[in-house]
């Protein structure tokens, strides 16, 4: 059924720290690796070794530059994947019931056996989180690594999404937003986690922690901590050095 659940038990999702992300794309690669060899159809590449290679990815890192007038520009690496929206428009448009939002944990998934590859869900998603696989003809999207997080065959520390597990900067966090005391809820509350395109009313679960403002180098006094210590020595020395200076001048 492609109607959305009134309430989900858990609200599993990600917190992505834009202040910490270094834009290394490790999450992109580990996502591709895990999801091409596990749940559902593999994430195919087209013309992989040719002139215009492209492929299916569930997670992509954009890099933006933001600039206020008269301030230095700030670079922000911006990983983007499914936000597992509470009011997910991609689910309700699906004609076959292949797209659904799980009642137990809120993960938005595609049952590929039912997907006819019409692409309407990708049209309905404002975030570009869904990509049609060119080889399989079915819609692919982030599963929040549903085949890792509950997987008792792998060590407990690996039971989180591949992107979170692989992030070398610790910029990605996984948890339950329905629990106010979870790591993700606390992080999001402490750092005013951002919702993407709130005006569209999709109520995304994932949150982005805003980057901290850069120091302003145009006002030099605010960053010049060492300069006062480097002031020239007074012309006349005092104490032992003063005595030495005077004593030496006698000769």
């Amino acid at each position: 059924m492609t109607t959305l659940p009134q309430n989900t038990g858990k609200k599993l999702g990600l917190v992505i720290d834009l202040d910490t992300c270094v834009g290394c794309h490790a999450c992109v690669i580990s996502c591709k690796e895990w999801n091409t060899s596990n749940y559902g159809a593999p994430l195919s590449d087209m013309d992989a070794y040719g002139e215009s290679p492209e492929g299916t990815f569930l997670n992509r890192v954009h890099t933006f530059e933001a600039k206020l007038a008269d301030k230095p520009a700030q670079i922000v690496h911006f990983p983007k994947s499914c936000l597992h929206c509470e009011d997910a428009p991609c689910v309700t448009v699906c004609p076959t019931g292949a797209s659904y939002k799980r009642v137990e944990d809120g993960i938005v998934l595609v049952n590929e056996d039912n997907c006819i590859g019409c692409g309407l869900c990708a049209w309905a998603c404002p975030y570009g989180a869904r990509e049609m696989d060119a080889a399989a003809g079915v819609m692919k999207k982030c599963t929040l690594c549903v085949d890792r997080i509950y997987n008792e065959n792998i060590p407990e520390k690996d039971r989180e999404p591949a992107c979170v597990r692989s992030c070398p900067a610790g910029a990605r966090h996984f948890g339950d937003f329905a629990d106010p005391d979870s790591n993700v809820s606390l992080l999001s509350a402490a750092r005013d986690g951002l919702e993407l395109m709130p005006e569209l009313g999709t109520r995304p679960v994932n949150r982005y922690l805003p980057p901290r403002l850069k120091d302003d180098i145009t006002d030099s006094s605010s960053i010049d901590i060492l300069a006062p210590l480097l002031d020239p020595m007074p012309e006349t020395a005092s104490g032992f050095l003063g005595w030495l200076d005077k004593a030496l001048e006698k000769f």
Partner: protein
Amino acid sequence: MHPAPSVIIFTALSGLGFGLLTWLGFGFPEVSGATAFAMFFVAFALAAGGLLASTFHLGNPQRALKAFSQWRSSWLSREAVLAVASLGVMGLYAIGLIFLNSTWQLLGGIGGALSITTVFSTSMIYAQMKTVPRWRMPLTPVLFLTYALGGGALLAGQVLTASLLLLALSVLQLISWKLGDRRFAQAGSTIETATGLGFLGRVRLLEKPHSGSNYLMREMVHVVGRKHALKLRGIALLTLGIIPAALLLVLPFNHIIAVAAVASHLLGLFAARWLFFAEAEHVVGLYYDQRRVG
């Protein structure tokens, strides 16, 4: 949005076909025997041919039957159910008219109503998209319905009704272009709301996430030149309503005139439908910092 030929052909032809079926269902014109056969043949060829074209853009068309299951929530599913119901009911009605020389008026009425409702659900597939502000307005279903009824009346040989509807359609099309041009700005999504980075100032894309293209960019980030679009709008406006109406109202009616009017309308219909997709901007383009260029 990418103006995919399969989707343009599907919405244009099936709209015309269901429009014609609507008129036939309500008995305009009252036909029987061979004339009825010809009329219903055209209507079914357009409606069913359009539906067939729509399956060409599916990744897995062999599972298309599953699309009939989600009519409670999905407009696309409703469209599929209504289309088959319309064709079924109108098929029975046609059998009565063609072979039994009997007019089952109730059946025709039901079939006609189902046909026009099919067009409505097609239009709602687009009008429901919050991600494409140009489509998301009440005028979208009105426009689709007027296209179907106007074009249908033209095919059904309702000279005066068709002329008036096609002139009204031209006005509606012009208004929806004008209103549509402002919709993206009105909807309020910007690269700043898309990234949440507005508090850091003006945002621009510094680096794409990948060196090549991808499905999203090909499907949803279609950039069309404004000059090119304006020219096409002019052609569409002239040919879809003004020329057909002038032909029908001014010249003495005969079959050659009718064929010319239909040909002109088809040209306008396809041009306008191409623009409907090509000019529609999807908000995901904001993440790629690509807006329509002048």
